[in-house]
């Protein structure tokens, strides 16, 4: 919980990170810090290594060099048991949901609760009901299988699973990709609300400029293997770095900004 209003406590610290695929350099000496309670977005053109960066932060991939500290733990020196402990404090929403197709929505959300807690089956069912309500899924979707859900519902169900254990830190990989504008706006609101109530720290990878304006606190722009700039959307939209300007000051970027400044 966000007991301390001390928002300068770092949750993720990345120092001199370098990643290579064979001889191709994906990240070249990247450093940044994510603070507790903020929504930090990573943007960049396709192939700029956003998803790779995310995989490194959630311990699915090891960087070639540099250090990553998540919730105070050094990922390069973490032991087996410690990493399990740490993973329980993280929630991840994968780009395509990654719900287990053999399980119903409710069973999917119950998986982490069953694995990692000693709660009774009835209590777990009730918690599942709460999480379903949080992500605004109708109760009758609980018994459905993932392949019976629409794209928006799938994302919501996956988000419910990601926050099942009340994580401190949530990673969202393209949360609004493939959703219609109404669903996107609803998901953005949901993310903000969950952050507020649960005191979450959120790291998201996204392309969606509207989402960035509505949700993100600070944004880091990846390009050419470097972290080009970190700042609020307002700062970035006035940036004179050519690559950053190209990203945020195209016609779409301006449209998203106007919309964000002049809400209906």
């Amino acid at each position, binding site marked *: *919980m*966000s*007991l301390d209003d001390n928002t300068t406590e770092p949750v993720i610290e990345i120092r001199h990170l370098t990643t290579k695929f064979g001889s191709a350099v994906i990240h070249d000496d990247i450093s940044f810090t994510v603070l507790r309670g903020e929504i930090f977005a990573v943007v960049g053109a396709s192939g700029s290594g956003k998803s790779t960066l995310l995989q490194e932060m959630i311990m699915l991939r090891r960087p070639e060099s540099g250090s990553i500290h998540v919730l105070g733990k050094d990922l390069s020196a973490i032991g087996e048991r410690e990493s399990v402990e740490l993973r329980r404090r993280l929630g991840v929403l994968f780009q395509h949901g990654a719900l287990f*197709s*053999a399980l*119903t*929505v*409710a*069973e999917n*959300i*119950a998986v982490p609760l069953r694995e990692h*807690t*000693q*709660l*009774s089956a*009835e*209590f777990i*069912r*009730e*918690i*599942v*009901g*709460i*999480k*379903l*309500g*949080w992500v605004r899924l109708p*109760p009758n979707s*609980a*018994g*459905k*299988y*993932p*392949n019976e859900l629409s794209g928006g519902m799938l994302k919501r169900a996956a988000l419910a699973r990601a926050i099942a*254990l*009340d994580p401190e830190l949530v990673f969202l990989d393209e949360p609004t990709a493939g959703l219609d504008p109404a669903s996107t706006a609803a998901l953005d609101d949901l993310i903000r609300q969950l952050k507020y*109530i*649960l*005191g979450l720290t959120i790291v998201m990878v996204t392309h969606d400029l509207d989402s960035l304006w509505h949700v993100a606190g600070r944004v880091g722009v990846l390009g050419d293997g470097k972290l080009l700039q970190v700042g609020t959307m307002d700062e970035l939209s006035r940036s004179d770095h050519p690559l950053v300007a190209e990203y945020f000051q195209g016609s779409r970027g301006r449209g998203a900004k106007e919309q964000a400044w002049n809400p209906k």
Partner: protein
Amino acid sequence: MTATASASLDSDGTLRCAGAWKMANVPFLERQLAEVLGKGSGQQIWQMSGITAMDTTGAWLVRRSLRRLEQTGRRVELRGLRAEFDQLIRWISADAGESVAGQPEKPGMIDQLGHATWNASLQALGFLSFVGESTLVLLRLLVNPSRIRWQPFFYNLKAGGLQAIPIVGLLSFLMGVVIAFQAAVGLRPFGASILIVDFVGIAMLREIVPLITAIIVAGRSGSAYTAQIGTMKVTEEVNALRTMGISPLELLIAPKVLALIVAVPLLTAFADVTGVFGGMVIASTQLDVNFNAFLDRFTSVIYPIDYLIGVGKAPVFAVIIAMIGCYQGLCVGGSAESVGRHTTISVVQSIFLVIVFDALFSVLLDRMGIGLFVQ
């Protein structure tokens, strides 16, 4: 989450709550509360100021306990609750809190029987129409061979035929050894050792080799076809082909069927050699029938028809395996789990049908006068 939590009743009837009301402590707190909640009546005071941390489960524990108490007509006053915890509790209760079972309703027995029958008929009908459709496509390809996709054909010929040679050859050799062993035990006491040639020759060429070859191909290639086409269904590649105006039957399925029709008879012929050789090895080591004597008798008692019957079944088995493998692949729907299920069905069904057709062949050949008893 190392901080402990507690909920205990004071002498004056106040419930004192303290510590971290978080997931790890909730099972313990739930037990403590259950003891406490039974006692007392009327107004109850919960002193919450000792709570240092709370998450969803903790908040829900408070909320559901309050609800139970209120249902029994008692009122509870929460005191000293921090604002953010209060908000969390309220947010939870505003939204949901119904128990969600999350299992689709289990249908009754008659319901299940009906569904199973209906699905089985649909499957049979679907397979029938698939066979019809692919036969048409194959006939069209035979009339117009330039439309055959040679690249996938040769690829499948290599994967399903060439690369199966070692395993088919080895297993057939072993089957020859096993069959000859059984025969040797029976023949030796009668001094009829030389008859092992008749036994091994006829059993291997007519029955064992075509069957073992078909079963291996069903396990190797049939399952691979289902998994490949099934995965392509899941990733919508099959739909992509359709929208491009490319018939999946022509691109995916015809080359596989044709490749197996060529590969399985060739594999059977090769396995005939290794299988009979396995019998020869046992005949010479166990029954003193050396290779020369074996081959001498082999050429006089085994007729080309025995070989042709065995190899003649092979294309039929090939069609069964390829058709079922591809059809089950196309039946895959939606999920990764479905791929696994249909792969299993594909192998079981094709082995089943191969054996059924083998039995039909025996009856048919007997009627045609080239069964074993006529010779």
